C-alpha cells in the first residue's frame, strides 16, 4: 500500500509561490491499477516524483508499504558517461541484487548489441529508452510508477514492453499518470483526475474520463 497524506508542493516563481499539489490525499492498494489523468502542467510528474521519493513535499507525508519503482520515464536514472553495463552494475548495487543475475535479461531485452559497453551519452533516445525499460523490468517491484508511456522503439518493441509490464506483471500495482485517456482506459481499473493541484478520485474509469473531458473542453 502507498499512502499520501495531505501532500502540498509549491514552486517558487518570480511572482511568489505556485502551488502544484494542493493537499493531495491518495491510497494505492496492493495490486491496484490506478490511472491519474491530467493536462500538461497539472502536476502529474511532480506527484509521481514525490511518490517515488525523488522529490520531497513541502508538507504532508508519504508512506510506502511496498517496494515502489523509480518513475519509468524512459530516460532519467542514468549517468551518461557510464556504459549501459556500468549503469546496470550501479543500479544492482543500490538495489542490492547480484548484477550477474539480471545482466542476461537486460542485454537481451534492451537489444543494444555492442553499445551495451559504450557510454550512455552516445545512445540515441530510443536506445536510452530501451535500456531504461529493460533495467526497470529487471528489478522486481510491487508497484510500478509510470509517467506517460510513450512509444519505446518500434511497434514490435513497444508490444514487447507492454506484454512484460501488463501481462507478466499483472499481479502488481501500477500508477500511471497521463494526459492520454486511452492509455489509462486500457490499463487501469481505477482512475482519478488531477486539475490545478487538486486530485479527485472517481468510482469508475469512465466517470473520471467524462470529467477529464469536461475539463479539457472547458478550457479549450
Amino acid at each position: 500500500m502507498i499512502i499520501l497524506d495531505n501532500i502540498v508542493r509549491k514552486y517558487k516563481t518570480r511572482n511568489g509561490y505556485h502551488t502544484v499539489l494542493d493537499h493531495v490525499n491518495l491510497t494505492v492498494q496492493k495490486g491496484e491499477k490506478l490511472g491519474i489523468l491530467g493536462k500538461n502542467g497539472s502536476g502529474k510528474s511532480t506527484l509521481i516524483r514525490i511518490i517515488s521519493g525523488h522529490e520531497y513535499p513541502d508538507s504532508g507525508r508519504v508512506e510506502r508499504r511496498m517496494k515502489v519503482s523509480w518513475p519509468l520515464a524512459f530516460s532519467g536514472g542514468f549517468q551518461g558517461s557510464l556504459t549501459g553495463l556500468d549503469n546496470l552494475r550501479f543500479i544492482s548495487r543500490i538495489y542490492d541484487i547480484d548484477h550477474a543475475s539480471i545482466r542476461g535479461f537486460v542485454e537481451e531485452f534492451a537489444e543494444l548489441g555492442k553499445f551495451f559497453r559504450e557510454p550512455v551519452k552516445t545512445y540515441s533516445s530510443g536506445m536510452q529508452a530501451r535500456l531504461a525499460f529493460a533495467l526497470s523490468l529487471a528489478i522486481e517491484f510491487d508497484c510500478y510508477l509510470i509517467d506517460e508511456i510513450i512509444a519505446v522503439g518500434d511497434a514490435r518493441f513497444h508490444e514487447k514492453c507492454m506484454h512484460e509490464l501488463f501481462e507478466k506483471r499483472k499481479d502488481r500495482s501500477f500508477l500511471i499518470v497521463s494526459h492520454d485517456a486511452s492509455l489509462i482506459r486500457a490499463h487501469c481499473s481505477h482512475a482519478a483526475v488531477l486539475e490545478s493541484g487538486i486530485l479527485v478520485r472517481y468510482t469508475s474509469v469512465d466517470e473520471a474520463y467524462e470529467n477529464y473531458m469536461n475539463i479539457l473542453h472547458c478550457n479549450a
Partner: protein
Amino acid sequence: MNDEKWAGFRQSLSLQLRVIGALLMREIITRYGRNNLGFLWLLLEPIIFTVGVVILWSAFHNTLGIHVEVTPFIVTGYSSLLLWRTCSFRGIKSIESNRSLMHHRQVKVQDIFYARMLLDVAGITASFLLLMAVMMGMGLMHFPADPLLLITGWILMSWFSACLGIILGCLSEHSELVERLWHPASYFMLPISGVFFMVDWLTPTLQKLVMWVPTVHPIEMMRGGYWGSTVPTHFQIGYILLVCLLMTLAALLLMADRRMKMLV
C-alpha cells in the same frame, strides 16, 4: 522497542554504505576510466609537479629566501594545497554530475558528497604517501621526526578540505555566484594558506594575522612533524579543531536542507 530501532538503524546504515560504495565505483570509472593510464594519473600528476618544482626552487634557492630544505617544504605544501583545492572544486560539481542518479530514492545528497570527498581525500593521501616514499628513496627526504604530528596535521587538513567541499557544493546549488566567486577567492587563498611560507619567517604582526587562516595550522603541524624541533613551527590544534567542528555542523545542516533534493 530498542531492538527494533537498532535493526532499523542497521538496515539504513547498510543501505547507505551500499549506495556510497556504488557511487564510489561510479566515480572511479568515470574519472579514471578504462582508457589511458587511468588511476595511475592520480599518483603520477603530483609527483611530476613536485619534482619539477623542487628542481626549479633548488636552482633559485638562495634568492627565494626559503630557510629550510626545499623538498619536504614543497611536498608538505603542495599535497595540502591539492587537498583543499581538489575537494572544493569537486564539491561544487557534485550534485550536477550525479543529478540523474537521484531518480533512485536510495541516493541522497549526503551519499553523493561523502563518496566524492572520500575518493578525493583517499587519492591525494595515497599520492602524498607515495611522494614521500619516492623522495625518501631518492635521499631527498628523511623519515619524519614525529610521524604522529604529521599524520594528525594531514587528517585535520583532510577534514577541513572535505567540509569545505561539501559547504561550497551545497551553496553552489543555491546560487551560481558561489562558483564564480570561489575561483578568484581560491587564488587569493594561495599566498595566505601557509603553503608557500612558514609562520616563523614572518614579522610578528603578520604572524598574528596569518594565524587566523585555518589551513596554516595543519600545514605547520605537518612540517613540525617532519622536521621535529629543529625547525620552529607555530600552530594551535584547538583552533583548527574548532574550525573543523563548526564547518562539519554547517555541512551537515546544509545537506539536510530539504531544498537540496528539491533542486533536482
